[in-house]
């Protein structure tokens, strides 16, 4: 059962990701991205990372996807024209990526990893929370500052000038 679910979710995640980077319409891509992350949350559940599965869905579906869609609507982004893949950069990148993938796949078939037994870590909210607010308290605080900094950054970047005399000089 677990194996079947793992293969199913893995397949769906990878397929979703592939579709994200191949869809021409950014709206489609955003929806597929959320779907991808949903399936990934499924994988998290299989890995007994219960809290993270919930967080994944909440943050990505609840926040990031909305943000993407909002911006897409705001920008009125059109479908992009099909890119010609003949460019040297593209081929080079594909080659490098393929090599990376092949190397990794080769290594990961390494027998040592087969034999690693599953641990007993249960990623419940209580367990994660206890760890987060004891050992990892300081990084947690830093992350909160990070979110604040990001908010301020966004304000600086997109808030319109407050008064007419504050208007930015035209470029």
């Amino acid at each position: 059962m677990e194996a079947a679910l793992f293969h199913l979710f893995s397949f769906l995640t990878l397929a979703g990701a592939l579709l994200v980077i191949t869809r021409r319409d950014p709206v489609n891509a955003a929806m597929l991205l959320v779907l991808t992350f949903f399936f990934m949350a499924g994988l998290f559940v299989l890995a007994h990372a219960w809290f993270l599965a919930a967080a994944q869905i909440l943050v990505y579906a609840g926040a990031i996807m909305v943000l993407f869609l909002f911006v897409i609507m705001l920008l009125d982004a059109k479908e992009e024209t099909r890119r010609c893949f003949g460019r040297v950069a593209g081929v080079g990148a594909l080659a490098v990526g393929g090599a990376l993938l092949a190397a990794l796949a080769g290594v990961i078939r390494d027998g040592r990893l087969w034999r690693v037994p599953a641990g007993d870590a249960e990623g419940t909210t209580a367990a994660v929370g206890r760890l987060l607010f004891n050992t990892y308290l300081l990084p947690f605080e830093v992350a909160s500052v990070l979110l604040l900094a990001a908010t301020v950054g966004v304000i600086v970047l997109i808030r319109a000038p407050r008064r007419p005399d504050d208007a930015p000089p035209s470029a």
Partner: protein
Amino acid sequence: MNLSDLLPLLRFLAPEILLSALALGALLGEAALSRLLGVEKRQNLLGWLALLGLGACLVILGDQAARGETLALGRGAFVASPFNALLKTAATLAVMASVTMGLRAPFVRHVGENYALVLFSLLGMFFLLSAESLLMIFVALELTSLPLYALAASQKGARRSIEGGLKYLLFGGLSAAFLLFGISYVYGMSGQGSLAGLRDWLVAQRTAGGPGFLFLTGVCLMIVGLGFKIAAAPFHLWAPDAYEGAPLPAAAILASASKLAGIVVAARLLLGAFLPVAGNVLGSPLSWHAGWSPAVAALAVASLTVGNLAALAQRNAKRFMAYSSVAHAGNVLVAFLALDASGRPAALAAPAIAYYAVIYALTNAGVFAAIHALAWGARGDDFADFRGAARRAPFPAFFLLIFLLSLAGVPPMAGFFGKLFLFMAALQADATHWGLAWLVAYALAMNVVALGYYLRFARVLWVEPAEDLRPISTPLELRVALVALALLVLGLGVFPSSCLAAFRTMGGVLLLRG
């Protein structure tokens, strides 16, 4: 844990707490004053308050350095030590120069937010300079970078600023992804989150069949991520556009404090945690040993080549500085390779890297401050706009010359000693066989080219005739900043051992403690 346990902690975290308070203060000040004062007034008031706060930070850091106490929190998540305090001091000084430049920047609309971003970024650097765990390095790196993305793009009326910021963000995100993916392998294979733990695990693995290929793949991916951060070729592609597009105060931070933090983190990871899998690049390629050294050697050679040769062809001062920064990444990477055949780093390596990172940050802050002063009366920041600037504004032009010569490695400026110590460290590593002489010789040859292009810039300022003879006035605070930075660059050059000795005595040179 009760309150009396927390108080000593506060003493060690005081600079970080003060910085957070300053950033929040800037935000609140903006909210409170935006209806009372005009933009320029707010810019001045909040800016001076920020400078005051940063000055207080310097005092606290000086106190930390003088006390010589060390504290490690949460599995290496935060290590306060005198050595780190000195590095933070240098970063603070560079950021102070940037704030001074920003006091009169004409394009700033969101005054308090702007200062807050600068302070947040500095806060990130503080945590980064104190981080000895993978998690903290990742989070602090993001806290350093995110405000800088926004600052680089903050000149909203200028297309090149937004585009530069965007490029910086995309490459920064790519860098973070590589770093994180590498971290996931490194952490996953070893189960160690702290750098000291990683090092001990690797030492233990020497007798247990090695760390495995996947771990090494992780290390390589992390090197890619770090390469992006310190703008080492071939991962430097973002730098020219980001530097050129960013407003000068933001570019100054990119080139100075942010680079300092990147170099220190790279040193902590490679020469600290991953030292047991360094390999080496001594002698001919046939005698090299696998590890991260060959990869870093490739980065060093590529950076020296690309940075120095591309800088020759630049026509814009900021792009020029970006390529110069690539070249300097190459210089500093030379000392990363200062390992002997048994993998022990040269005694001079870590002090030399730290010394170089510090003086490089101060010098670059000076260069950008001087360019800012000159650009005040120029049309733009192309070389052509600075023709004959020495006649229009001899004061900043003189200091720009000093800083450029320091970058070129001309004594008695600190840049000369910085480069010399790096190269000496590389030769010290394998002193009986001169195994790194090939790399040092190449670096020296490339530095001859470097003098050529720094002099080219200096020629534009000092030799070429000026078309426009109206004098450019330099605000007093900028003059003070230039003089202070120049004194530091000269002082650390004439008395290099003051800094070097401090780095040496402060704790067995490298860097891991937790």
